[in-house]
């Protein structure tokens, strides 16, 4: 069963469990390393309350999204706290985030995984609505993108469950059995 979500997000995200499939509709804001640093210094160009932040460095041509798959979220591990403190309700990316971030999500936000590399699929569900910090370059700027039912998986929920962590722990155990020291 797929749960339909729309931004701005509220307490409905607290009902999500790691492993749930969802679709997201409405505005998301892209941010990679540089954009996080800039927003930390200068504040948010968008309203962070209930917002969705997408770890993505898109290829945009004029008004058209050419490609917009997720980037590796773990790079933003140490830069995430201020977003959540300001009311951001979901982070979207690939590969999951650290145990620290899992703690920060507790009771207030979730991490949604988008299939890595699926740039054409992402582009087909998005429209460009605005851009800030263009001086950072196309991939590092903050793009406002409007989503139409982007399919996502809840990777980390607001109750301490981390699907990536569970899978990694099982893989470690399998490996230890296959290749005993």
């Amino acid at each position, binding site marked *: 069963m797929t749960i339909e979500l729309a931004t701005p997000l509220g307490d409905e995200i607290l009902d999500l469990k790691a492993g749930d499939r969802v679709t997201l509709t409405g505005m998301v804001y892209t941010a990679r390393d540089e954009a996080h640093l800039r927003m930390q210094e200068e504040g948010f160009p968008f309203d962070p309350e209930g917002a969705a932040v997408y770890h993505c*460095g898109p290829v945009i041509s004029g008004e058209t999204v050419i490609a917009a798959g997720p980037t*590796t979220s773990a790079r933003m591990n140490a830069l995430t706290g201020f977003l959540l403190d300001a009311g951001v309700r979901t982070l979207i990316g690939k590969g999951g985030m650290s145990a620290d971030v899992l703690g920060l999500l507790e009771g207030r936000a979730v991490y949604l995984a988008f299939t890595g590399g699926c740039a054409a699929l992402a582009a087909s569900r998005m429209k460009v609505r605005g851009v800030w910090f263009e001086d950072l370059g196309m991939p590092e700027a903050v793009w406002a993108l409007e989503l139409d039912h982007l399919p996502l998986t809840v990777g980390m929920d607001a109750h301490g469950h981390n699907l990536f962590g569970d899978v990694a722990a099982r893989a470690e155990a399998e490996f230890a059995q296959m290749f005993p020291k």
Partner: protein
Amino acid sequence: MHTVTDTHLFRAVSDATKKALEIAETHLPEDVTAALEAAYASEEEPIARAELGAILDNIALAEETKRPICQDTGVPVIFITLPPDIPYTPAIEEGVRDGVTRATASVPLRPNVVSPMTRANSGTNCGEGMPVVHITPGDTFMLTVLPKGAGSENVSRIAMLLPSQVDNVRRFIVETALEAGGRPCPPIILGVGIGGTFDRAAFLAKEALLEPIDEMDTFEQQICDDVNHLGIGPMGLGGRTTCLAVKVKQAGCHTASLPVAVNIQCWAARRATVRVIL
């Protein structure tokens, strides 16, 4: 035998590079798509199925809209076979650079190539010594591009094992996939180079990624099964399919060495070969 001028050569190689990149960035090779389809059919976990379903939808959409399959359009790695009647001159590499620059605008490709220390971006996907061009003798004038994304390249590894550690080769390869986890966008393909020298092993691993993935020998199959046994699954979210194929290439090595290189390739295993037409 015809005489080939540098101008001809430059133009022909540039056109072939641009064409190969345009194909590679928007169409996955048939063997890769078939392997992903087979994986989708065999998955039972709903999350793994959904991830593979998204990948297959994405491949179809990229083809239909002539858009890049992935936003990380990679750095181009080029392999050329040169027949005996074609002169090996600098015009070949210059042609490649020109073709890459043109494809960057036409596809378009994300400008990924930067200077390693200043991180200044050239904007053209070319830089000092970039793109990497490998030229070998052959019967026909062919050009292959392998655009390589950073997500999978960054978690590739090389080990200089001891000659007494032959039994550890398999362990090292599987451990590389374990440590990479969901980061290289699984399902992955592993290109493995065993033997040679430090640099040769890495090159063999890259070269192994050019091989079709619809066939594996017993050793390759065994490693592939081991990796799938880890259960990392598509995107590291769990499932049966972590590895689509393992391809191994070997070379003779020093009696005191055992180099093993593992080059990880993500599901977006883009490669295309075109004939260079003079």
